[in-house]
């Protein structure tokens, strides 16, 4: 089995080519960041239910200590990234496209970086029980680090050995972002250990590592690590650079030729896809017992002095990281969380880095020119040519714009991966993806309202039924009581009458007896 198999099996529709801007941030090795004075840890850093804080303000915590527990199956715990004192649990700005605040645990660090007692390493994972390994991944708070932040343990759960292929997503197709590239250059061995752990848990026979061909050094280092570990049926596959080849569905199609069904997940066709950063974190959790408390973040763009990648503690503010990278330059215009295609701009640099933040792009006006005013759609169809999900972006646009959400869903709105290719190619500069996001959140909110209304109807009906039942029961009781009273009353009357009648009878009898006696006496005396 060769370590590299350069051929891909499929190709996806559309996609776009654009300058990748990756060289700027890959000139120096990943730097360690000094511990910032304060860490801000949002309770919601993953898809699912927010974690529940298990510490309170004033408490001293150690590095790696659990500070918020998972609340439910689809949720993830959060650990202290360094030692310090919890200064508050309060609302703070979080990285989110809304620019709103959410509940965060705030740690004033003490600089000692003292470790808590960690769970023991599981060195011999091949003989460990799957449940133990999955539980370790779960309790280490590991979520998809590619940006989706879905709790990783759920993807690992038993599917009756139906998984035959593990795909490692290392395509990193979005311009500017290089954190996965640097991770593969520097930590290929640990990534390979992570792959072995995941493959062992899933029972996947084959593993495909998909890397875009603009990362030759990462490809070389990963191929060498795979060869050194003499992994069976594991291939590093070079995929052509074409945005968005790193989309889960697009990469699956590229590597296997199989299409993930609409509304489905890769597991439906026997595939599990994990981001390369997640794989590294899983190896950390299993082999070292370390929870997810740091990640590599790319700090780049013309607005930052020394573009580079850093090992950032989760919760470090964006401003802190930018100052580590030499601070802002005069060209800084926008601070974008993520890349230029799918990222969102942040109102201030006080926003913390969370588990899902892979890049901070301090963009100049050249990096991200301000959007030109939108003009009318001319039905050119370029968006449909570029759409990697083979949708009809124009139709989605019309229906979302006119708030005709049912129709938008008929055109498979929820198969849109919001990659931004359609907006990028639109000659009328229409912010198409904004319309889709608007429509999606509207539909979700309507669905939630409907569930709430159904629930309220149920409760109201139950209440009305209960009140009716109680009223009926009371009526029945009253009727019964009345009947008893009546019968008692009626019975009493007749009894009394009988008694009286009997008394009258007795008296009459007595009288007649007395009369008879006097009569006989009289007759005797006569």
């Amino acid at each position: 089995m060769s370590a590299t198999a350069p051929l891909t099996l499929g190709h996806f529709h559309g996609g776009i080519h654009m300058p990748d801007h990756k060289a700027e941030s890959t000139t120096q090795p990943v730097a360690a960041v000094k511990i910032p004075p304060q860490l801000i840890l949002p309770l919601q850093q993953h898809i699912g239910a927010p974690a529940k804080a298990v510490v309170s303000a004033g408490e001293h915590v150690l590095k790696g200590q659990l500070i918020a527990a998972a609340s439910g199956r689809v949720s993830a715990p959060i650990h202290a990234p360094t030692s310090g004192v919890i200064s508050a649990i309060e609302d703070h700005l979080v990285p989110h496209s809304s620019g709103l605040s959410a509940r965060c645990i705030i740690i004033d660090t003490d600089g000692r970086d003292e470790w808590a007692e960690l769970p023991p390493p599981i060195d011999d994972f091949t003989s460990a029980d799957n449940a133990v390994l999955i539980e370790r991944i779960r309790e280490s708070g590991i979520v998809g680090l590619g940006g989706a932040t879905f709790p990783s343990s759920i993807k690992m759960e038993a599917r009756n050995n139906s998984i035959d292929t593990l795909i490692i997503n290392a395509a990193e197709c979005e311009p500017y972002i290089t954190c996965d590239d640097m991770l593969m250059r520097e930590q290929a061995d640990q990534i390979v250990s992570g792959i072995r752990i995941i493959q062992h848990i899933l029972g996947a026979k084959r593993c495909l590592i998909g890397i875009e061909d603009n990362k030759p050094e990462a490809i070389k280092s990963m191929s060498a690590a795979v060869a050194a570990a003499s992994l069976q049926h594991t291939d590093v596959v070079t995929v052509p650079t074409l945005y968005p080849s790193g989309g889960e569905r697009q990469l699956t199609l590229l590597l296997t030729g199989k299409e993930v069904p609409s509304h489905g997940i890769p597991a439906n066709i026997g595939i599990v896809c994990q981001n390369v950063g997640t794989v590294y974190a899983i190896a950390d959790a299993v082999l070292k017992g370390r929870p997810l408390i740091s990640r590599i973040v790319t700090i780049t763009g013309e607005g930052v002095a020394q573009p580079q990648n850093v090992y950032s503690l989760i919760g470090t503010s964006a401003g802190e990281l930018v100052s580590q990278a030499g601070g802002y330059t005069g060209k800084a215009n926008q601070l974008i969380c993520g890349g230029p295609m799918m990222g969102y701009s942040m109102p201030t640099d006080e926003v913390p880095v969370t588990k899902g933040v892979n890049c901070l792009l301090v963009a100049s006006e050249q990096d991200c020119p301000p959007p030109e005013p939108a003009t009318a759609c001319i039905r050119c169809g370029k968006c449909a040519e570029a759409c990697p999900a083979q949708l009809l972006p124009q139709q989605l646009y019309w229906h979302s714009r006119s708030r005709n959400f049912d129709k938008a869903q008929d055109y498979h709105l929820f198969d849109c991966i919001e990659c931004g290719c359609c907006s990028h190619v639109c000659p009328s500069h229409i912010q198409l993806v904004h319309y889709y996001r608007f429509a999606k959140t509207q539909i979700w909110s309507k669905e939630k309202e409907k569930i709430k209304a159904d629930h309220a109807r149920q409760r109201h009906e139950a209440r009305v039924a209960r009140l009716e039942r109680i009223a009926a029961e009371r009526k029945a009781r009253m009727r019964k009581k009345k009947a008893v009273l009546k019968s008692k009353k009626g019975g009493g009357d007749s009894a009394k009458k009988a008694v009286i009648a009997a008394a009258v009878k007795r008296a009459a009898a007595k009288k007649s007896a007395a009369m008879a006696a006097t009569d006989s006496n009289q007759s005797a005396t006569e």
Partner: protein
Amino acid sequence: MIIAIVTIAALATLFGLLLGYAAMRFHVEGDPIADQIDKLLPQTQCGQCGHPGCRPYANAIANGEDDINRCAPGGEATIIALADLLGRDPVPMDEGIDEKAPSVALIIEKECIGCTLCIQACPVDAILGAAKQMHTVIERECTGCELCLPPCPVECIVMIPIEEGIGNWIWPYPDNDHRDLSLSREAL
């Protein structure tokens, strides 16, 4: 002549029987139109429409006794949905009805005297408590109908508007004059 009359009469009898049988065989319990209308109403049971709950209002609309523009919590979206269902033209909200932001009731527990009047008023059993014991609103179940406000003798119930958070945030409708996304100089 007689043949024609007999034929027509026979056909009329036959179809009459057929219709009579169909009416019995395919009889629908309840009022399907009122059911469909009820499904579109927000089920707050607030009575702002002048009917004692959503179902009675749905019945009134179905019977043509009331207009479709009297549901305050539902707002414009409900009017449009009802107009769509009933094949009518949407009309603006009735003037006597004012739309409010969604909110939930909160009992100021220090002031509550435990009279149970609000518990009896709540249409969805969202208030918990007992006589001479403090009451509380189960926030998750509260529909924000405000029916508990008037009976409270000490006015210890207040309506709290539901805050916008990350969980219920809706992407704003895109406009052509783009938001200014640039960082202010002070922020840098």
